[in-house]
């Protein structure tokens, strides 16, 4: 591909969830003209969720994403809690949080060893057929490879025990859970959790040895080329610690100053979205800062979510081992907020350790074993559920009719928040790899590495109506009958 070229397609982009492609255009001087991150898929959940039964939504919306179904399942369940005015009893809440942290552990593990990590564990310039989990196993050895597979299995097994199935769990209900766990299952969870904490700790050692000490990664994470000073958004608990299952939304400016801290349901009022004719995804931004194009800095409303952003909005991690690693992370960057895009990998592993620690703590709590599993429900209405998906803030917002059917469903999905930032990162890397009208095909993987930082989930991304609060206007004739219904 060494002749002069005008357009380069990476299609499909790989080692992520969902469909995406990158189009790189060269100008007449052979430099980068522009680069586009396109999402060529749409399924239409927003439309066919209308008319469904509220209690079916956790199992319908989790089919938006089979990599993070737990995030949709519980964002949905929490929205239903709010719709029915029914907080789950302590036992159900503990079961949910336990499952949820197991999911966060398992999902972050998946990204490091299967999706984004192989670029460094196997090497960015390794043959494409080796840049995958099997290449990782080849590189780190069969024993550690088996450990990786076993611990991903542990996360999935905990999800299966509490959720009824390892993928697409079924046990979340408005105001509770459909089942508890047995004493044997709890013992099984405890022993898996203890092992997961050690494995996550060992994974961070691998990170220091294989990534931070690696010349390419070190250059990407500590150089000035892949730094995007953007707003960050994430959930924090009352103590300002990272919180995956529940919390307030906190947004900080590129300099780290607090921009907003609001109850999760109110985040909708801070965001606006735009469409572009060349992609099926919509692009949100902070409304009051405004859309200044695909640009970074304090005047651009582009913001990020996910591990890097969560570690920028929190004041602490909330678990001891992960806190120690977080301090090491801050030391490396000379304090927060951190805007080096490649630091997503490190932040993700700190969260993976924290999630494992939380699983261990939650599994020790006797509240899991007794007490009611369901709270009494009120009359159905409007409700918002917010949760930290592995990839960032996820919001489900439902309006149920008096019979508990969905009048409208509004979803704000993790990867969608990051679409503008991903576009910026891709363009930045494309600028680096396009030289005098030539692109070495080996270098194209670097462009893909720039999006893999975000662990994007593009199946999720196309299902969002950011910033559009459901609105229904009935136009009635003189006889009071509805003549026209306007919805947005």
């Amino acid at each position: 591909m060494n002749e002069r070229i005008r357009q380069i397609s990476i299609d499909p982009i790989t080692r992520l969830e969902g469909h995406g492609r990158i189009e790189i255009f060269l100008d007449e001087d052979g430099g980068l003209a522009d680069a586009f991150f396109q999402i060529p898929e749409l399924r239409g959940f927003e439309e066919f969720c209308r008319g469904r039964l509220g209690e079916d939504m956790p199992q319908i919306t989790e089919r938006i994403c089979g990599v993070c179904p737990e995030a949709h399942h519980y964002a949905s369940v929490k929205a239903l809690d709010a719709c029915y005015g029914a907080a789950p009893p302590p036992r159900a809440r503990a079961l949910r949080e336990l499952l949820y942290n197991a999911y966060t552990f398992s999902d972050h593990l998946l990204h490091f060893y299967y999706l984004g990590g192989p670029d460094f564990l196997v090497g960015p310039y390794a043959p494409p057929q080796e840049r995958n989990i099997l290449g990782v196993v080849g590189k780190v050895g069969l024993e550690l490879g088996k450990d990786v597979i076993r611990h991903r299995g542990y996360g999935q097994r905990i999800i299966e025990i509490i959720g009824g199935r390892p993928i697409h769990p079924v046990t979340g209900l408005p105001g509770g859970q459909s089942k508890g766990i047995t004493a044997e299952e709890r013992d099984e969870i405890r022993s898996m959790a203890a092992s997961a904490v050690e494995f996550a700790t060992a994974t961070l050692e691998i990170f220091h040895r294989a990534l931070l000490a690696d010349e390419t990664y070190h250059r990407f994470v500590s150089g000035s080329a892949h730094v995007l000073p953007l707003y960050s958004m994430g959930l924090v608990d009352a103590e300002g610690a990272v919180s995956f299952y529940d919390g307030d939304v906190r947004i900080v400016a590129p300099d780290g100053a607090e921009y907003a801290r609001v109850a999760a349901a109110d985040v909708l009022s801070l965001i606006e979205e735009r469409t572009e004719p060349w992609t099926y995804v919509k692009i949100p931004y902070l409304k009051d800062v405004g859309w200044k194009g695909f640009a970074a800095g304090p005047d651009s409303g582009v913001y990020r979510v996910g591990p890097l952003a969560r570690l920028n909005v929190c004041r602490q991690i909330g678990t001891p081992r992960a806190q120690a690693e977080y301090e090491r992370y801050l030391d490396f960057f000379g304090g927060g907020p951190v805007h080096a895009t490649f630091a997503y990998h490190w932040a993700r592993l700190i969260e993976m350790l924290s999630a494992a620690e939380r699983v261990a703590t939650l599994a020790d709590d006797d509240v899991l074993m007794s007490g009611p599993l369901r709270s009494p429900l009120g009359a159905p209405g409007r409700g918002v559920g917010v949760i930290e998906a592995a990839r960032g803030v996820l919001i489900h917002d439902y309006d149920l009719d008096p019979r508990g059917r969905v009048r409208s469903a509004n979803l704000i999905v993790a990867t969608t928040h990051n679409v503008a930032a991903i576009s910026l990162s891709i363009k930045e890397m494309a600028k680096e790899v396009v030289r005098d009208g030539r692109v070495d095909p080996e270098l194209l993987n670097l462009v893909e590495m720039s999006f893999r930082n975000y662990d994007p989930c593009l199946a999720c991304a196309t299902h969002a109506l950011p910033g559009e609060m459901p609105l229904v206007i009935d136009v009635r004739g003189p006889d009071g009958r509805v003549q026209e219904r306007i919805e947005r």
Partner: protein
Amino acid sequence: MPKAKLGIYWAAACGGCDCSILEINEQILDVAAGAEILLWPCAADAKYEDLRNYRNGEIDIVLFNGAIRTEENREIAELIRAKAKYLVAYGSCAHTGGVIGLANLSERDRIFETVYGPRERWPRTESSLDGCVLRLPAFRTQLTPLSEAVDVDFTVPGCPPPREIVRELLTAVLSGDLPPRGTVFASSKNLCEECPRERTHERIGRILRPHEAEPDPEKCLLDQGFVCMGPATRGGCGAVCPAANMPCTGCAGPTADVPDQGAAMLNTLASLVGAGEEGETTMADEDAVLMQIEDIIGTFYRFGAATSILGRRYRERANPTDLD
């Protein structure tokens, strides 16, 4: 024995099917040892260009998950069909259209209006920005399962396919000992055959929704009034949802001898509802029990709206604007 050449692909899908392959845990290492993976966008770096460069029939078997939603899905399905000796419809979306088949109840324009707002804001199949021409695949008017786009050799039902069935499939792939074309990797019987709950065929006097009451964990959910799709659904998963105190939602599709899952379920339910003595006088009361099912489509055709014999006829009635 030469390594089997394997492909795994997703069309309109959620990624759960891809993850279901990882659910075999350590057996994935046997797959690595016994198969060469020529395509797997979720986990490996082969591109469409590589796929186009393979010879026809070069890939031994492709596990294809996802439905045909966009023109790109259809084109890639045709390309994969040409390159693969065997093609597997893997998971609900490829098999029966899946949850996303519910989109067939709405016109394409309505879906776009709901998602993007007014027409001027819709994505376009071709657009130009400062001389850069960008294309998007068209969104087809109707979603179809894989078998309506190309010939399919094997089917693996489930959303996603359960672990033991995935093991069975991959064992067959690795050994090269594949069953006859047309084989469905699942039980030929319905879910009730493998359900641990006790069924007494009690008359149903009231339909219950899962959040309305806590079911008895030993008794059949249908007997208790919960609409469990077990009788109309193919077994093979071990009845994991009823075991978790939740009704079966029918993800594995209809049993072998039934053409339409929802019709079969309605038939079963109609025979179970009772309002006192049998006979014509109670028929209206029995109808009233059935009318308590608030969302017929979402309940009976959760995973099969795209392949139901009812087809588009439900579209008008299911239009949510008559939800007053």
